[in-house]
C-alpha cells in the first residue's frame, strides 16, 4: 500500500491529542500531590492547541483519508472545535469540584482526554468500523470516570449500570453494523450509501440492521425507551463526570447519528424517520413529565436531557439539510447550557455538600445575585424562552419539522415544552422567591467565576445574535 504523508494532515488534531494524552499520563506519574496543577494546565493547553490545529487544517472541502475510514469536512471541524471548547469549560469546573472535594487526581483529566479523542474520532468517521472504534474509546473512558470516586457506593453502582447497558448498546450497534455489512458488502459510509442507492431499499436485512443501529444510537443518546441509565448515572456519578457525560458527548452522539443515518443510510430515510419520530415523541413526553417529580437537581437535569435529545432527533428526522443544521445548532446549544448548569451546581457545592437537592437552591439570589442570574439564563434557555439561545434552537428545529409537513409533531413538541417550562421556572422560583436556608457564603475560585459568567452570558448573547453560531452549522451542511 502506498503511503502518502500528506494524508496525515487532516488527522493532525487527533494525532496531537493522542500524543499529548500519552505524555500527560507519563508526566502525571512523576508529579507529587502539590504539582497536580501541572496536569490540569497541560490538559487545558493541549485542548487549546487542538482547537488551533483543527482550525488550521479546516477547509470548506471534504477530505477522506485512510482508505475511506476517516473524513474531515466542515461539520467535523465545527463539532470538534465545540467539543474541545465545551470540554475545556467542563474541566475548569471539574477542577473546582475536585479541589473542593480533595479528589484532585491526574487520571480524571487523562481519562477525559481519551474520551475527547474518542469523540473526535466519532465525529470524523467515514466508516462503521472507525465510528465504532471512537464510540468504544469514548464509552470506556466514561465508564471509568463514573467510578472515579472509589469510595462512593452510588458511584460504583452507576458505573456498573452504565457499563452493562452501554455494553448491550454497543452489542446492538455492532450487530446492526454486521447486518448492514451483510446486506451491502461494505462498511464505508459512502460505499454503503451507493450500494443502498443501487440495490433499492426493500432489503429486509438492511432494514433489520437499521433497527439495531437505531437502538444502539438511542442508547447512546439516551432516548426513551433506552434512557434508563441516564438518571442513575447523572445521579450517581460525581458531579463533574455527570457534567462531562451530559455535555460534549451529546455532540458526538449527534455526529454518530448524522454519519450513520445520513452519510450512510440516507436512502432508508423513510424507514428511520418513523423510528426516530417514535423515539423523539416518547423522549419529549417522558423526559418533561418525569422531570417534574424529581427532587434531585442532577436527576432533574438527566430527565431534561432526555427531552432535549428528543428535540435533537426531531431535527435529524426531518431529513433535510435545514433539519440537520437546526439539530446541530440544538446540540451545540444544549452542550453550552448543560455545562453551565452543572458548573453552577459545582460552584455552589463545597466539601461535604453536593448542592444537588432542589431545596439547596432556595434563596440563591440573596447569596449570590450574579450566579443566580446565570442560572436564570440557563433555566430560561433550557425552557426555550426568548431572548435566550435555547429559544432559537427550538425555533429552528420546529422550523425544520414544519417545513417537511410534520406540523402535528411540532405541535406535540411545543405541548411538551410547555410542561417542561414548569420545572425550569420552579428552579427560578426557589432561587428568587424563597428565603435562603443557609447563609454560607458562595465560594469559588476566580477562574471558575469568570468562565461561569462568560458561559452564562453567552446564552443571552447567542440569543441576541444567533446568526453567528448558525453560520457555523450552515457551513457544515452547505
Amino acid at each position, binding site marked *: 500500500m502506498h503511503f502518502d504523508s500528506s494524508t496525515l494532515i487532516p488527522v493532525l488534531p487527533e494525532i496531537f491529542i493522542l500524543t499529548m494524552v500519552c505524555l500527560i499520563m507519563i508526566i502525571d506519574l512523576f508529579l507529587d500531590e502539590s504539582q497536580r496543577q501541572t496536569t490540569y494546565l497541560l490538559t487545558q493547553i493541549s485542548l487549546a492547541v487542538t482547537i488551533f490545529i483543527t482550525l488550521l487544517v479546516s477547509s470548506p472541502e471534504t477530505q477522506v483519508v485512510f482508505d475511506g475510514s476517516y473524513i474531515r469536512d466542515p461539520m467535523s471541524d465545527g463539532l470538534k472545535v465545540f467539543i474541545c471548547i465545551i470540554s475545556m469549560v467542563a474541566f475548569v469546573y471539574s477542577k473546582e469540584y475536585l479541589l473542593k472535594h480533595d479528589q484532585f487526581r491526574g487520571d480524571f483529566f487523562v481519562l477525559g482526554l481519551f474520551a475527547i479523542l474518542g469523540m473526535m474520532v466519532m465525529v470524523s468517521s467515514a466508516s462503521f468500523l472507525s465510528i465504532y472504534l471512537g464510540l468504544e474509546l469514548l464509552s470506556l473512558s466514561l465508564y471509568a470516570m463514573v467510578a472515579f470516586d472509589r469510595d462512593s457506593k452510588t458511584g460504583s453502582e452507576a458505573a456498573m449500570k452504565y457499563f452493562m447497558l452501554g455494553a448491550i448498546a454497543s452489542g446492538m450497534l455492532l450487530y446492526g453494523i454486521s447486518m448492514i455489512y451483510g446486506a451491502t458488502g461494505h462498511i464505508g459510509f459512502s460505499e454503503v450509501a451507493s450500494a443502498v442507492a443501487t440495490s433499492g431499499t426493500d432489503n429486509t436485512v438492511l432494514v433489520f440492521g437499521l433497527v439495531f443501529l437505531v437502538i444502539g444510537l438511542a442508547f447512546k443518546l439516551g432516548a426513551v425507551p433506552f434512557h434508563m441509565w441516564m438518571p442513575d448515572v447523572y445521579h450517581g456519578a460525581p458531579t463533574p463526570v455527570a457534567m462531562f457525560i451530559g455535555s460534549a458527548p451529546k455532540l458526538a452522539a449527534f455526529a454518530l447519528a448524522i454519519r450513520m443515518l445520513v452519510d450512510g443510510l440516507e436512502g432508508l430515510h423513510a424507514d428511520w424517520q418513523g423510528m426516530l419520530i417514535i423515539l423523539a415523541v416518547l423522549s419529549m413526553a417522558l423526559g418533561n413529565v418525569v422531570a417534574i417529580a424529581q427532587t434531585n437537581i442532577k436527576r432533574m437535569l438527566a430527565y431534561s436531557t432526555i427531552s432535549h435529545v428528543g428535540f435533537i432527533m426531531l431535527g435529524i428526522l426531518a431529513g433535510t439539510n435545514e433539519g440537520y443544521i437546526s439539530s446541530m445548532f440544538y446540540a451545540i446549544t444544549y452542550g453550552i447550557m448543560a455545562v453551565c448548569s452543572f458548573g453552577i451546581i459545582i460552584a455552589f457545592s463545597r466539601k461535604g455538600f453536593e448542592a444537588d437537592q432542589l431545596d439547596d437552591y432556595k434563596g440563591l439570589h440573596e447569596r449570590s445575585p450574579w450566579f443566580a442570574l446565570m442560572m436564570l439564563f440557563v433555566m430560561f434557555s433550557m425552557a426555550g424562552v*426568548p431572548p435566550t439561545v435555547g429559544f432559537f434552537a427550538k*425555533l429552528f428545529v420546529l422550523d425544520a419539522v414544519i417545513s417537511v409537513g410534520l406540523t402535528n409533531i411540532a405541535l406535540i413538541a411545543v405541548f411538551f415544552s410547555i410542561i417542561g417550562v414548569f420545572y425550569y421556572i420552579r428552579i427560578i422560583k426557589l432561587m428568587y422567591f424563597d428565603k435562603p436556608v443557609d447563609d454560607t457564603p458562595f465560594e469559588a475560585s476566580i477562574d471558575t467565576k469568570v468562565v461561569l459568567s462568560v458561559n452564562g452570558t453567552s446564552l443571552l448573547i447567542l440569543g441576541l445574535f444567533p446568526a453567528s453560531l448558525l453560520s457555523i452549522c450552515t457551513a457544515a451542511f452547505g
Partner: protein
Amino acid sequence: MSADWPILSATIWLPIIGGLMVIAIGDKNSNNARWMSLAVAVMTFVISLPLYSGFNPGTAEMQFVERAPWISYFNIEYYLGVDGISMPLIILTTFISIFVIVAAWEVIQYKVSYYMAAFLIMEGIMVGVFSALDAMLFYVFWEAMLIPMFLIIGVWGGPNRVYATIKFFLYTFFGSVFMLVALIYMYFQAGSFDILSFHTLKLTLNEQILIFIAFLMAFAVKVPMWPVHTWLPDAHVEAPTGGSVILAAIMLKIGGYGFLRFSLPITPDASSELDWLIISMSLIAVVYIGFVALVQQDMKKLIAYSSIAHMGFVTLGFFMIFMITANPDASTGALLSLQGGMVQMISHGFISAAMFLCVGVLYDRMHSREISSYGGVVNRMPWFAAFMVFFAMSNAGLPGTSGFVGEFMVILASFRANFWFAFLAATTLIIGAAYTLWMVKRVVFGEIANENVAKLEDITGRETFILASLAVAVLALGVWPGPLVDVMEVSLANLLQHVSVTKIP
C-alpha cells in the same frame, strides 16, 4: 416617512440598557438607582415623542421603518415600524412607565435597583412588541416580556405571589407557543417572517381557522378574555402596585393589539366565520365579569375584574365589524367600532393605571386591600378622595372622561350590528357604575370606620403629581379625543380594507 435617526430602536434599547446600568449602580445608595431610573424613563418618553409629532396621519404605510437582516438563513429580520395603531400604544407605554417608577419611589425598599431595572427592561420590551414588523422579532419580544413580569410579581408581590406568578407564566406561555407554530407555518407559505407579507397571504378557510385559533389562544390569554381570564385577578392581587399598573395599562393592550395586527388582517375569513365566538366571549366578559366585580371584597380584585369587562368592550369592538359590514345600511359603523375599541384601549390604559395607583396609595398606608377595612377616607384624605372619585367616575364611563368615549363609540357601533349586542354592552354602564361607585362609597365616604383610617395622611406631592398627570390625560382624551382618533383613522380604515377582502385563494 422615516426619520434621520432610529427613534424606535432608541425607544426600545435605551430603557433596556438603562435598566442594566441601574443594576450596575446597585443598592448601596438606593437613591442613585431611583434617580437614574427616573432619568431613563423620562428620556425614553421624550425620545418617543417625535413618533407622534413626526407622524404622518395621512398614510397607512409603516413609518419610522428600520430594517436589517438578523438571521438571514431563516429570513428573520430586525424590522421595526409603526402605524396609527401601534404608535399611540408606544406613547402610552413610555408615558405610564414614568409613573410606575415614581410610584415605587418610597414604597419599594427591597432590592430597589432590581425592581427599577425590571420595569425599565420591561418597558423596552413592550415598545418592541408594538413596533416589531417581523413576526419572529415580535414573538421574541412577546415572550421576553414574561421574564421581567414573572420576577416582578414573584419577588415583590404579596403573600400568595408564587402561585400567582407561576400561574401567570404558564398561562401566557401556553397561549403563545401555539402562535409560534402558526407563525412558522405561515413563514413557509410567505417565504419570510414579514408581518405585512402575511397580510397578503392566501390561505384556505381550513388553514385560516387553525391559524386563527392559534392566535386566539395567545391573544385571548393576554387580553384576557373570559374564560381564560383567571390568571389576571391572581396576578393583580399579588403584584406590587407598579406590576399591576403595567399589567393592566399595557400588557393587556398587547393582546388587543395582536388581534388588530395578526388575527383580523391575516385570517379575515376565519375571523368572520368565528366572530360569533369572540362576540359572545366579549359579551360574557362585559356582563358576567361585571357582576363578578360587584361582589369582590378586595379592591385590587375588583379593578382587575373591571379590567376584564372593559377589555371585553375592546374585543367586541374589533370583531363586530363583520356583522356591521354585512348590514347594508351601515357604511361607517365598522370603522367606528374599531376606533371605539382602540380608544377604549388607550383610555383604559390611563384609567386602570390610575385606579391601581389609587389602591396603591391606600395600601401603602394601611397594608390592606379589603374594602371593609376602609370607610370615611375622605375625612382624612380630601385630595386623594377627589382623585379617586374622579377616576372611579371615568372607570364607570362618565361623559367628559376618556372612559366614556370608547364605550360610547362601541355601543353606538353595536346598534348597527345587532340591537341586543348594544343592549347587553350598554348594561355595563349600569353595572360598571354600580361596582365602581359602590366601592368608592364604601372606601371613601361615610364615617371614619376605624382608628387606622383616622391616622391616614393625605397624599404627598409625589403622589399628587402622578394622579394629577393621569387625571389631565383622562380629561384631555375625554373632552377632545380628536388627535388620537385622527392618527389612527387611516390605519384603521386600511385595516378594514384588508379585512373586507377574502384571503381564500
